[in-house]
């Protein structure tokens, strides 16, 4: 039973928007980074190099999307720990709200803002790619949402282990951002030393990058069933784990 889910989700959206830093950081920062990097690479030298063009074609959008996902997750970890430290989770739990309703509301809020930021990004992209790209926008958006959902589950595990709100944000950032380095976004996985390749294949970010890059360049979903399966495993394992270790107070 999901009594109160919509009311709570709507409230959390409003509350989130009342915190100016959170709203600006989550909604506008990825778009700003995207525009600045895109401009620097695309227009720095009269004609962009082949590598820069390739990055603009698929690397940059994928990177920006990964940033959106990660900032959503870090923000979730932070909010959950603030809510726990302030006794807000405990207070909400002492109502007819079911525990998973409380957490689902936060997941929905994060997914919604991921979608909004992504839309802003697409709009901003029109300035960088005036000619327009032949991109399956809806599929790509779905892929970003799936990616976000899968690492949100890791966020809950982190939120369970990090007890104080002060450390939630840095710990979250320290865990997620370095994953990008191993994800094949900048350095192809095939060119990594074998030991790092193993690491790369253990990190969910690798599958996210592979999925996003593929869908962006027009590959069908069926070509990425492996990535989807890996992300599904991550979600299920982390959801089960956090159900065990999650602390409400």
């Amino acid at each position: 039973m999901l009594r109160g889910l919509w009311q709570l989700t709507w409230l959390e959206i409003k509350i989130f928007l009342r915190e100016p830093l959170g709203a600006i950081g989550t909604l506008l920062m990825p778009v700003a980074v995207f525009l600045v990097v895109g401009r620097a690479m695309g227009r720095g030298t009269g004609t962009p190099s082949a590598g820069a063009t390739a990055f603009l074609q698929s690397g940059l959008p994928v990177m920006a999307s990964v940033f959106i996902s990660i900032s959503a997750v870090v923000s979730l970890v932070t909010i959950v720990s603030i809510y726990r430290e302030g006794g807000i989770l405990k207070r909400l739990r002492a109502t007819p709200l079911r525990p998973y309703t409380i957490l689902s509301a936060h997941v929905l809020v994060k997914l919604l803002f991921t979608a909004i930021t992504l839309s802003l990004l697409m709009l901003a992209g029109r300035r960088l790619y005036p000619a327009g790209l032949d991109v399956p926008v809806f599929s790509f958006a779905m892929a970003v949402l799936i990616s976000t959902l899968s690492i949100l589950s890791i966020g809950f595990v982190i939120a369970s282990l990090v007890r104080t709100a002060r450390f939630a944000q840095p710990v979250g950032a320290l865990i997620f951002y370095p994953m990008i380095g191993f994800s094949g976004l900048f350095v192809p996985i095939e060119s990594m030393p074998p030991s790092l390749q193993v690491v790369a294949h253990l990190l969910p970010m690798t599958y996210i990058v592979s999925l996003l890059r593929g869908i962006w360049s027009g590959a069908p979903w069926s070509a990425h069933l492996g990535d989807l399966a890996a992300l599904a495993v991550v979600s299920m394992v982390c959801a089960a784990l956090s159900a065990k270790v999650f602390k409400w107070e």
Partner: protein
Amino acid sequence: MSRDPQTAVRVAGVRKTYGRTVAVDEVSFEVFEGEIFGLIGPNGAGKTTTLECVEGLRKPDRGTISVLGLDPFRDVYRLQERIGVQLQQAHLQKRIKVWEAAHLWASLYRKPASDADRLLDQLGLADKRHAWFMTLSGGQQQRLFIALALINDPELVFLDELTTGLDPQARRAIWELVRGIRARGKTVFMTTHLMEEAERLCDRVAIIEHGRIIDVDSPQRLVDRHCPERTVVLVTDDPLAEERFHTLPRVDEVIRVDTRFTIRGRGDDFVTALIQCLAEHQVRVRDFRTELPSLEDVFLKLTGHSIRD
């Protein structure tokens, strides 16, 4: 009021440990319908743990709890419909507005929003409807929590350290609100470490110390039982007075400073005996005051014993 009070809460032999720390042990008591029942004791005595076991937020390791005929841990969702809860040190989202919290709670309990608005009015929060939670004063926050605890028109209301951190004026205002809850026929189960609060507010109290209940009764009967001492302070010029005071039945000591006497004795009849003595010997008294022991004295006495043991 029926002569035979119905039991709202029955706690029997409850034990709860956190790791190797025993929070409460062998705790047993009953709360009757329509009363304000207080669980009193110092910080860390096990008040909140006991309360949260009764609310169904914690599962006791041992013992049985029945709340309005339900098992609070197993039937927690059914119970939540019938109880109201105010938690110690709980907060709401910093930027949630007062009316938003009230309406959310109303919707969770399937009550119309108008019920929530009426409660905000009754608790003096009408002009704070649009204020963020973080901008409310301590007293206003607690009034909001009381409003939220009452929104489902509960039969039983739990209040945990309701007035901690409030100034005396806000505290008195909250006491009036709690009496108002009882006047509506509801049962109140509260905790406090303020003896004055318990004495003024509670019909019955349970004293808890180191996780164990020491005694349960009305504040007056606890005082009578544990602190039979009576102290009378009076001022007289009568030169024979001191000798006469020494002959009073059950007198413990007579302290004299000039014309001021402090006379200590024990028992309900001690003050009467003293007054009779004064009248009989026509002792002229310029000042007369009795000092009655309070719950505070009871508590000091009881915990003092346990420390000496």
